[in-house]
């Protein structure tokens, strides 16, 4: 724990230092130095705080919904060649479409509040988790499945004791990878529609040409990512302790 904290402190020092040097070298108002930016975090805390929480709420709810829908479906497809034959091609057609293209229709259907943003992110997470979990379920060692079946396990018990635990590490990998995309989509959606969340904060600052304020928003967004990754780490340590 202490080591991790030290790691973060070190990373912050290095990043801030590089940023500072770059800002000095470029000498442009569009890239303020950390010394100009950090005070903005304090100055706008009253607005950044709620925007941060709203953004965090949207991502977390979307992650939960996307995972809750994709995990059982992915496990089922992975363990059933017949389902895979039927649904596999559908997945391959839909998966590569960047889900952001559905923003306009979602805005029309769901308004500009939380719902379209959550649905859009959940869609992205859904496909990523679905494909990863399906492949993980397919790759479960046959010897483990056969052994557990020979102990008298039902189909359900095989899922409980073998397929699900075997797929969990891959699930977390999928979540880590897709949360990067999720934050990018969140930014886009918040920037385009509505006036809440870090995306809106950053774009508003940009419109005002207040670059230090904009960078305060960017820092908050980076922090959002850190919160997500640490959340995944904690969950994975609890659920996949054997690693």
């Amino acid at each position: 724990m202490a080591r991790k904290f030290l790691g973060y402190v070190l990373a912050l020092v290095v990043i801030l230092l590089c940023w500072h040097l770059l800002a000095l070298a470029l000498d442009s108002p569009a890239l303020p130095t950390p010394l100009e930016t950090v005070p903005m975090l304090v100055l706008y805390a009253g607005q950044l705080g709620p925007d941060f929480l709203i953004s965090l709420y949207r991502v977390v709810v979307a992650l939960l919904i996307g995972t809750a829908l994709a995990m059982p479906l992915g496990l089922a497809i992975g363990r059933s060649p017949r389902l895979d034959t039927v649904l596999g091609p559908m997945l391959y057609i839909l998966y590569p479409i960047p889900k952001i293209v559905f923003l306009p229709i979602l805005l029309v259907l769901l308004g500009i509040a939380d719902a379209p943003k959550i649905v859009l992110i959940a869609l992205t997470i859904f496909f990523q988790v679905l494909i990863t979990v399906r492949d993980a379920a397919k790759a479960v060692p046959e010897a483990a499945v056969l052994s557990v079946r020979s102990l008298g396990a039902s189909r359900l018990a095989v899922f409980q004791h073998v397929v699900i635990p075997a797929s969990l590490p891959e699930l977390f990998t999928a979540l880590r990878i897709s949360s990067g995309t999720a934050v990018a989509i969140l930014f886009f959606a918040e920037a385009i529609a509505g006036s809440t969340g870090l995306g809106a904060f950053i774009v508003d600052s940009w419109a005002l040409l207040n670059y230090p304020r904009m960078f305060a928003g960017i820092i908050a967004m980076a922090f959002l990512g850190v919160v997500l990754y640490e959340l995944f780490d904690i969950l994975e340590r609890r659920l996949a302790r054997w690693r």
Partner: protein
Amino acid sequence: MLSFGNVSKWYRGGAGEVQALDGLSFTVEREESLVLIGPSGCGKSTALLLAAGLLAPDAGSILIEGRAHSGPRLGTGLILQDYGLLPWKTVFENATLGLRIRRYPRAPREAETRVLLEQLGLAEFAQSYPGELSGGMRQRLALARVLALDVDLLLMDEPLSALDLELREALQDLLLTQWRSRGYAQLIVTHSIDEAVYLGQRILVMGPRPGTLVAELSNPLAGSSGYRSCPEFFARASQLRSLLLTTGDADGA
């Protein structure tokens, strides 16, 4: 106990059909120790999966205690080549899994598992994960997992092939001790001639794929103490070696 009557098995896959077994017949008597040996790919593992009820034969019949079975049977234990342990469960959880799946009450279940781990020298490692065990310990854990279930038929697919010679002999003795004290029938697949002669009261030799029986060697002294250094042991081993040479190949370890 177990009888195969003219069992044939085909695998259907992307590369077409493969016939793994062709009219395999044999029986395992109650409390008997039987060894199945034969060239690589001749269908030994297939025969074990069929006996375990995890595959169904395409032709012929498989009877256990006179009855055909569809699906795994409670009294049959199976140990596969790489053990099929669950890396995400502790040694204790792995050992007790069969009882748990069968909804055996928790308190006696845990007490019995503890005794068994003690017997097999794994008590200290109850809270470790399989990934933290040596090969020999993993093998003993696989044994513990099936012995917890009070089996009357134990099927083992090259149970010791991943171990070095010294450990292998120690574990052969452990297998024999457990077999003698618990009185189940066992069917062991192996590549090793020495192992076959040390463990099998009868040794069935299979020919190349599609597998069928080509010879049978009776070996009544198997399981007796000190057999490994008896002249009879060497006589049987060389007899088996020449049988294998005439019928196919073998590693001859």
